[in-house]
Each structure stands twice: as structure tokens, then as C-alpha cells.
């Protein structure tokens, strides 16, 4: 068992899962470093939850290998050891609705063999801001509060790797922000977080790296890396009046790969390096007598990356 401080928290090699004839995901390979917040993005049915369930030892992989928190997936004993080191918050909270919040957490503390669980439960409740609801029946809580209880439950064992499946699903913006702050805190405390989400802004804000999955792994990297990989950099210039001879201004500039009009008084220039081109572009415009209203780097969001990779494409054939 790999247990070095530098070993990845998760190491997945060629993992594949079939349900009979259907393929949930195929040939997935990636590593997640210790203390990293890793996003798993993809459309419904892309295999995100099945991947998490496999890594959480709930499902057996059809082929491939994985090492989770230093323990290779395999036997029942390895499964128990992995489950000792990780926690999973499933998309549905799965609480005992006829029991109180504290009873729910107390039960799970016992399942995780936590000695003197009281302080652990208090800390988990405090982390999700539910201390004052500890004695409420879970059935009386709103969907958002139930989600927070489920999150508190996942925090109880102080996991090495925490899998969060759509953690902000059903939460209002304020509650979602609390969860984001919590994930930031977890990152700071060295917990590895694997986050599946449909909220691309959330992934962009929280994740060190993301993987886009649609049965196969489409891409993996830092959000800015993915943007750079998929989209060329561009500068957008807005002027008071259109240029009489724009080709005379833009074509001679070093570093400009192409250019075009993107509005009546707006031009878009594809460049290799925005910082290198921007000063000479301003000088050229001023020399040409143009009045510059604004100049900005065109930004692409993770959503653009996602849409580019899986947005309009039909879901991969699952055979």
C-alpha cells in the first residue's frame, strides 16, 4: 500500500465500469493530489456518480485499477480500509427522517468508530451552521438543511478524501456560498475533495483542476489551462468611430494572428500573447487617430470549455 506523503490521494488507471451491455464510463485515468480540490464535470449519465461510487467501494470496477487514500481497490478488507479513510456525500442526503439530526450523526459516528463522538458531532454541526437544529427531526428540515446535515455527516470521520456529489444541489445562494467556504476550509486543512457538480461557476471557483467526463474522460486540467488549450487569446477593442483602414493598423502589428470586426466600432484580434501585443496596439490606434473607448482581453469561462467539449454533442454511445 502506498502511503507516502507525496503519493497522490487518488490514482486511477484505465478504470472501466459496465452494467451488463451498458458502459457507465470507460478507460478513465487520472491522479488527484493530496489537498487538491478536484472537479468531475459532465452531463447527466456521463458516469460521474458511478465513478465516485466505484472509488468509494460501492461498485466493483469492470477493469482497471485505482488507489484510494493509499489503499488499492480490491478485496472486501481493502474496501473497509478505504471506507475508513474517505467519506462520501451522495447527491440525495439519505437521512433517517424519523430521527433527530444528532441521532443521525451519532449513528454514523459509531459506524466510523469515532471515540467520544460528542465533540466531533458538535464540530461538524458548527461547520455547517446547524448547531441550533441538532435536536430537530430530520424530517422537519428543508431540503437545503438536510443537505447540510448530510455534509456534516461526511465531515464526521475527518476523511483523507472527501467525495461530494452535487453538494450544493437544492441549496439557496447563501447556503451554497457557505458550502463553498467550507470546501475552501477543507482545502486549507489538507483534505482532498472530489466534487461532482453541474454548476460550472462553482467548479471554476473551487476546483484546482477539473476533469470533463462523458463516459470517457474528455479533458483534465486547471480551468485556465483548459481555456488556453481550447480557445485562442483575443483582444477586443472598442472605438468611438470605425477605422477607415483597419487592415493598415492591425496587419503590420507583430503578434497578431488574425483580426476581424465584431461590431460597428469593435474589433477582435487573435493574439499569441495579450500582454505583448496590447501596448503596440494602443500606439498603432493612437497613431491612426482613433479614439479608444476600451480594450479588454476576451475571457472564456469554464462553461465555454464545457460547452465546447460536451455541450451540444449527443451523449456518447453507451455500448
Amino acid at each position, binding site marked *: 500500500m502506498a502511503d507516502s506523503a507525496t503519493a497522490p490521494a487518488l490514482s486511477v488507471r484505465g478504470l472501466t465500469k459496465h452494467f451488463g451491455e451498458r458502459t457507465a464510463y470507460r478507460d478513465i485515468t487520472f491522479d488527484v493530489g493530496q489537498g487538491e480540490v478536484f472537479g468531475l464535470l459532465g452531463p447527466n449519465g456521463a458516469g460521474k456518480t458511478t465513478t465516485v461510487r466505484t472509488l*468509494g467501494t460501492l461498485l*466493483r470496477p469492470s477493469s482497471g485499477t485505482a488507489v484510494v487514500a493509499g489503499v488499492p481497490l480490491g478485496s472486501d478488507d481493502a474496501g*473497509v480500509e478505504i471506507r475508513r479513510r474517505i467519506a462520501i456525500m*451522495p447527491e440525495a442526503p439519505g437521512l*433517517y427522517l*424519523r*430521527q433527530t439530526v444528532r441521532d443521525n450523526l451519532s449513528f454514523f459516528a*459509531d*459506524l466510523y468508530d469515532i471515540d467520544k463522538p460528542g465533540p466531533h458531532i458538535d464540530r461538524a454541526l458548527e461547520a455547517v451552521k446547524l448547531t441550533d437544529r441538532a435536536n430537530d427531526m430530520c424530517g422537519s428540515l428543508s431540503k437545503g438543511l438536510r443537505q447540510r446535515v448530510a455534509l456534516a455527516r461526511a465531515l464526521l470521520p475527518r476523511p483523507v478524501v472527501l467525495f461530494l456529489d452535487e453538494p450544493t444541489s437544492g441549496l439557496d445562494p447563501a447556503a451554497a456560498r457557505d458550502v463553498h467556504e467550507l470546501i475552501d476550509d477543507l482545502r486549507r486543512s489538507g483534505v482532498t475533495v472530489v466534487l461532482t457538480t453541474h454548476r460550472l461557476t462553482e467548479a471554476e471557483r473551487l476546483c484546482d483542476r477539473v476533469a470533463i467526463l462523458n463516459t470517457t474522460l474528455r479533458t483534465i486540467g486547471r480551468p485556465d489551462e483548459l481555456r488556453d488549450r481550447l480557445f485562442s487569446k483575443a483582444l477586443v477593442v472598442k472605438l468611438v468611430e470605425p477605422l477607415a483602414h483597419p487592415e493598415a493598423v492591425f496587419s503590420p502589428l507583430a503578434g497578431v494572428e488574425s483580426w476581424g470586426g465584431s461590431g460597428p466600432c469593435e474589433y477582435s484580434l487573435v493574439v499569441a500573447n495579450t500582454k505583448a501585443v496590447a501596448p503596440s496596439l494602443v500606439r498603432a490606434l493612437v497613431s491612426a487617430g482613433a479614439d479608444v473607448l476600451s480594450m479588454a482581453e476576451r475571457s472564456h469561462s469554464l462553461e465555454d470549455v464545457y460547452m465546447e467539449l460536451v455541450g451540444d454533442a449527443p451523449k456518447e454511445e453507451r455500448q
Partner: protein
Amino acid sequence: MKKLRRARAVFFKELRDYKRNGNVIYAMVIFPLIFLIQPIVELLTVSSGASHVLRHEHSLVYMLAIPALVPAVLASYAVVGERLQGTLEPVLTTPVTREELLLGKALAALIPTVVVSYGVFGLFIAVVELFAHPGIAPALVQWPDLLAQLIFTPLLAVWAIWVGMAVSTRCSDPRTAGQLAVFATLPAVAVTSLIAFGVIPAKLQVALGFGIGLAVLDRVGLRVVSAMFDRERLVSSTR
């Protein structure tokens, strides 16, 4: 110790859940009432002259149907109920093993069943002692029958629990699971009823054979149900 701790946690969680679960309370009340009221009414209306007939019968064995039916219903809900509520998946993500989970759930079905069965039996004897015609109670309450009740109650209950759980691991609807579990325990109820009605002679050899058979089934039950408890199938609903 940790294994026991997790099984104990499951046990207490189940008991907490029972208290507020209408289906469970219904199962624990209705079956015992059915098997209590009818014989009480019958015995209270029997005259003292019938005592010599009762002395040669084993009517009390009839009440062993309670430990066969009640835990079957409780156990049949144990897995499929959790699956339906969505609580099974979070539990399976913890270090708890199949055996610990099943053991905790089995104990949670067994202990209330034994308490209810002995309690109902005691109540039955008390009512007969207090209100039946003279001579009925001594004719009815015979040591072999009391011993049979004492020994066969837990043996039958454990067997019924494994049957109920086996059904529960394979069903996707709690109501169907309950019906199938009751149906599957009927052979045991049939045996006890046939003994009670004198169709099967109540001999020591019969009791021993029945007891040993149940003990063997009880012993292998956990292993069989553990093998049937497939995490993957339960989580992903694949068949």
C-alpha cells in the same frame, strides 16, 4: 469490539426508527393480537369438563406462529426499506461490513420479537389462569409446552429473520417483501399449527428434529444472507 460497536449502533438505530414507524408497530401489534384473542375467547368459553381433552393437546404450540411471523415482517423491511428511503447508500459508504449491518438489524428484529412473544404468551397464561373455568388452566399449561415455547421462540424468530432479510435484499418494494417473507415462513407456522392441532404427534423426537433443523438454519442464515447482500446491486439497482 469495533465490530460489536458497529452492530450495536445499527441495533439501536433500528430500535429508534421502529418507535416512529407505523408499519413496524402494526406488525408487532396485529399478529400477536390475532394469535392471542382467538384462543383466549375459545378457552374462556370452554367448560371445566373439557380439561381432560386439553390435557392431551398442545394448543399453546399454536402461539409459536408469533415469533415466526412478526420478525419476518420486521426483517423484510430492513434492507429494502432503507434502500427506498435512500439511507442505505450513506451507510454502505462507512466501514460497516455486511455482517455487522445484518447482525445489528437481525438483533433489532429478534429482541422485540422475543419480548413480544414471551409477553403475549405470559398474558395469555395469566388471562386463562384468572378467567377460564376451573381446571382449564392446569390442563392447558404443561411443562413440555412451556419449554417448547421458551426454546422455539428464539429459534423460530432467528430463522424468520434470515428469511425476511433474504427476501429484503432481493426485493425492490417493501410491501411485496413483507408478503413474500410471511409466505416463506408459513411452512414453519404450518408445522407448529399441525402439532397444536394434533396432526403431527408432539413427541420428543419431533421436537428435537425440528429444533436441530432450526438451529442449523439459524447458524448458516447469516452467511447465506451476507452472500445475498450485494452492495453493487443494492446501490445501483442492477439485476
